[in-house]
């Protein structure tokens, strides 16, 4: 297949400039970059139909190969209109971003910054020293009385509490 150098170079230039703009912070430039990239891709698809040909309107006495390949054209027509819809959507997004945040820039993600800030940070719950508990039934309701069962019914409450803290401290130390 013959290669059309002009179309090839123009396509390359469109893509190059488009990528350059796509990597900008300004949203308007990003959108322009997207438009240019889609231009470049359109030219790429156009090139796949080969050398210039007759407009694909069926006439008598024409060979199928005389027409410019109609399939890439159908694809291109679709692509052009879709690109328009996308541009409109992105414009609405830019406007919305301007209304909400008074900025039309690609901003850095705060969440990622927060992750970076957690290096060396301590979670108080993670790092707290917790004594071992000496019963599973500390907070169980006594079915007989309907009240929360005291730690050790055999002893007065405060005595039992000291015994319990001692116990947990002992377990933590060992």
């Amino acid at each position, binding site marked *: 297949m013959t290669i059309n150098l002009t179309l090839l170079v123009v396509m390359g230039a469109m893509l190059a400039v488009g990528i350059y703009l796509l990597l900008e912070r300004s949203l308007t430039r990003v959108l322009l970059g997207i438009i*240019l990239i889609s231009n470049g891709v359109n030219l790429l698809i156009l090139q796949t139909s080969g050398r210039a040909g007759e407009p694909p309107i069926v006439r008598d006495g024409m060979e199928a190969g005389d027409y410019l390949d109609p399939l890439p054209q159908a694809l291109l027509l679709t692509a052009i209109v879709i*690109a328009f819809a996308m541009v409109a959507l992105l414009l609405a997004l830019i406007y919305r971003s301007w209304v909400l945040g008074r900025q039309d820039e690609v901003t850095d993600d705060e969440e990622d910054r927060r992750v970076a800030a957690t290096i060396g940070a301590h979670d108080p719950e993670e790092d707290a020293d917790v004594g071992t508990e000496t019963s599973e039934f500390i907070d169980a309701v006594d079915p007989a009385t309907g009240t929360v069962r005291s730690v050790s019914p055999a002893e007065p409450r405060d005595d039992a509490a000291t015994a319990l803290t001692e116990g947990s401290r002992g377990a933590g130390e060992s």
Partner: protein
Amino acid sequence: MIIVLAVLFAVSILTPLFFSWWGRSTFYLLTGILSAAFLWTFFYLPVVIPADQDAPIGAPNAPPAEVVSWIPQLGVELAFRMDILALVMSMLITGVGAAVMLYCARYFPRGERGAGPFAAQLFAFAAAMLGLVLSDDLVMLFIFWELTTVLSFLLIGYSAHRIFARRSAIQALVVTTFGGLIMLVGLLWLGELAGSYRLSDILASAAELNGTAVDIALALILIGAISKSALVPFHFWLPAAMAAPTPVSAYLHAAAMVKAGIYLVARFAPGFYDTAFWLPLVLGLGLLTMLIGAYRALRQTDIKLILAYGTVSQLGFLMMVNGLGTEDAALAGLAMLLAHGLFKAALFMVVGIIDHNTGTRDLRVLSGIGAAQRPLLIISAVAVASMAGLPPLFGFVAKEVVFESFYGYAEVNGTWGWVVLGGVVLASALTVAYSARFLWGAFAAKRHPAGHPAAGTALPQTQFHHHPDAVFLAAPALLAAATVLFAVAPQPLQQLMEPFAALFEPVDPAVEPTYLALWHGLTPVLGLSALTWALGLGLFWRRGRNGRALHALPEALDAERLYRVSIRHLDDFAAWVTSKTQRGSLGWYLFIIMAVATGVPAGVIAFTGHTIPGHFILAEGPMQVVLGVLIIAGGLGAVWAPKRFIAVLTVSLCGWGIAGQFALQGAPDLALTLLLVESIILVVFVLALRTLPAGIWTQNPTRFRFGRALLGAGFGLIVMIAAAIAMDRRVAEPVSVEYPWMSYDVGHGANIVNVTLVDIRVWDTFGEISVLAAAATGVASLIFVKRRDVQRRQLHEVPTGSVGRVLSDKALSPRQAKEVQVARSFATVAREAWLVAGRTLAPEHRSIIFEVVTRLMFHAIILISVYLLLAGHNTPGGGFAGGLLAGLAFVLRYLAGGRYELEAAIPFSAGALMGWGLAVACFTGVVPLIFGGQAFQSFVVDLQLPVLGEHHLVSSVLFDVGVYLVVIGLIVDVLRSLGSEIDVRSEQEHRRDSAGGHSIHSQTSLGVAR
């Protein structure tokens, strides 16, 4: 075996349902099922015992097995095999499991909400554990292994509202999964070395497997076993796991799950006990664990923790015996495994009963329970005595054999053997001491210790809330009874375990194999046992009643501290890696993506052979070159343009240039459509961005200008090269050579592109118009936020000159103020307006010439658009071009007459337009189906009209009408959103700000037609 496993898992899934019906009585059902499974294992006895234990599946006289192929490509299969080891483990799992389930039926209060899922998890654990010991496939083994880990995590975290339970659960999960993953590497490595993932095959070919690789693989597997069985340095998770409800501790953390590591060691020992790292790891860590665990058990004041550290100690013990690799040790290991399961589960259950009825497990509070609760005391005494290795109990029988095997090992192997034996004896003495401490702590009547205000006086008698009923006591009683039974009659167990022990060589050919019995005669081993009792009881008497009398281990050896520090560092490292790779900058990610998209194809092109394309032309004609230069200039202009609108204009220049290229190549449809689209994009751009500042300035100017330019150029170049190579190498005939006759004869149209769109590839187009409708809805929802069809005022209610009026000249410079005044003077019209809503515009925004031109052209444009639509089947045009042109006509009306003019021009909802468009398109698709054709099949209707003559109407034209409507709807929607609605908003803001202060709108929206 597979059926039993499947049934068990199915029951576990259904358990929460049963629980909602029967409450805690469901545990009886679960007990019954596990008992049945226990009985089921007995049916294997006559088959398994005479079988050849090391015969792989399929060999003659092999143990029973079942194999179902699962992933044959990877050699993974559902292979299950029941040999002696698996049988003993199965009996332990199902037997103790049944007892634990029975115990649960009393342990949980009647209305406990969390108990349903708990029961399901506990039961699923039994199934997973059974699967683990039956698996003969390394991958299946690993899956069940991890399943037990996950279930253990869920069960430890049962009291999820307690920090301690949550932390313990996570700790157990992290530690055992860490070991499990290392083990996975070892298992896969071993499987690859052996060329089979079948466990029995690997063990059968163990003799040929040697070398450093096998040594390392086995060491990795051992690390998994060590972490699971809580050996030093991973031992700390097991005492913390005591946060789980006591039945879980009894089952998972004493009888079953922690035995998985022991099982693994016992499983691999016959083939691999002689690998380089095996004995050092097993004996060294085992002994260390046994000593540390027993020592720390002596210091605990929580009776459950005494048992927990005791379990750690015993696991070290079991690991040593099972890993030793002699005939005697194998028999001893299996017997000890069984003995430990029986007495430790029983003791945990006793602790649970005490905790349940007194609300504490602190031995400094508990006092005098032994006198009040005789049955409980008897059960505990039997189990504790078994733990201490006292006759006539099974613990004693097992321990005798263990001592015997270590004694024999020491006699043959000299110094190190004696060191090990000495360590074991010392640790056994400590075991006796902590056993005594447990019994004393739980049941004895005590006095206040020295230092207490009431030192010397008796502690108050601990009362039970309820008398534990027979069901509650049944499970521990049964287990304790089994301990006695096996001691009195060990012969059946001897018969069962002998074939397994026969897999190993005796330590010395001269040594007679030992056997399970209460009385071996007056041997040195009996002397060792007596020594441990004396030492242990003495230690308890001197120090055992006051745990503080013993020194704590140095902090540097505290493995839990080490674990916490390493986890914290791991977290920090993860955050560091995340912050380096996930930097939060979209531009950076795009840069990486594009760099890869450039680099990879560049590499492929560079390293594969390509010929330089031969057929080049510079261009089809000079015009193409001129246009090309223009397009590139437009693109570069977009980079350098300082203001938004200049940038947009230069980009539009590119679009128009490309439309020219289309025309030159011979694609009139494309050229037409692209021209229209570019024009509309230009207008929409200006409308949307008019409220933004004119200059493209940013607060954070983008850096890496040179790098981005380089990347862009590189990407463009790579695509050029790839495109050139691809086009040069094209060999196939394009499918589209068939299109001309197809479109003319089948599609009944001469315009091939149009017929392709509405007939040949109609599904594509149908998808596309759906996308258009979605995009339009997106635009509208971004701008209107709440609803699209805002009710505007009626035209006659709008005061003349009210739209877009500059209310105050204060914000303007004198020059601007003068301009506004001149504009106002020109806008006064004497005669009837050209446009219906022209009068509503503020005078400074009116252009009479524009209004006149619009008036003259609007209807003509609409007519042309309809022509394009209908004629598009045979000449350039079609639904897209027609729709865009009609849309452009509405753009004109809006620009000339403002938002009320737009409403007057098209009084329909944009959503309705698009909806009707899609409906019409659907209709043309569905109608042929009704008449027996295919979806979207075209047909011709011949009409004989009185005046217009004969006409062919092709049905696909109707589809194009749908496209036409959707496109108009899209443009109207965009106009109403980005045009009218933004007008309204900026006017409101303008009004608010006119009193004072500068608004961005007041500075930027001037001069733009409203």
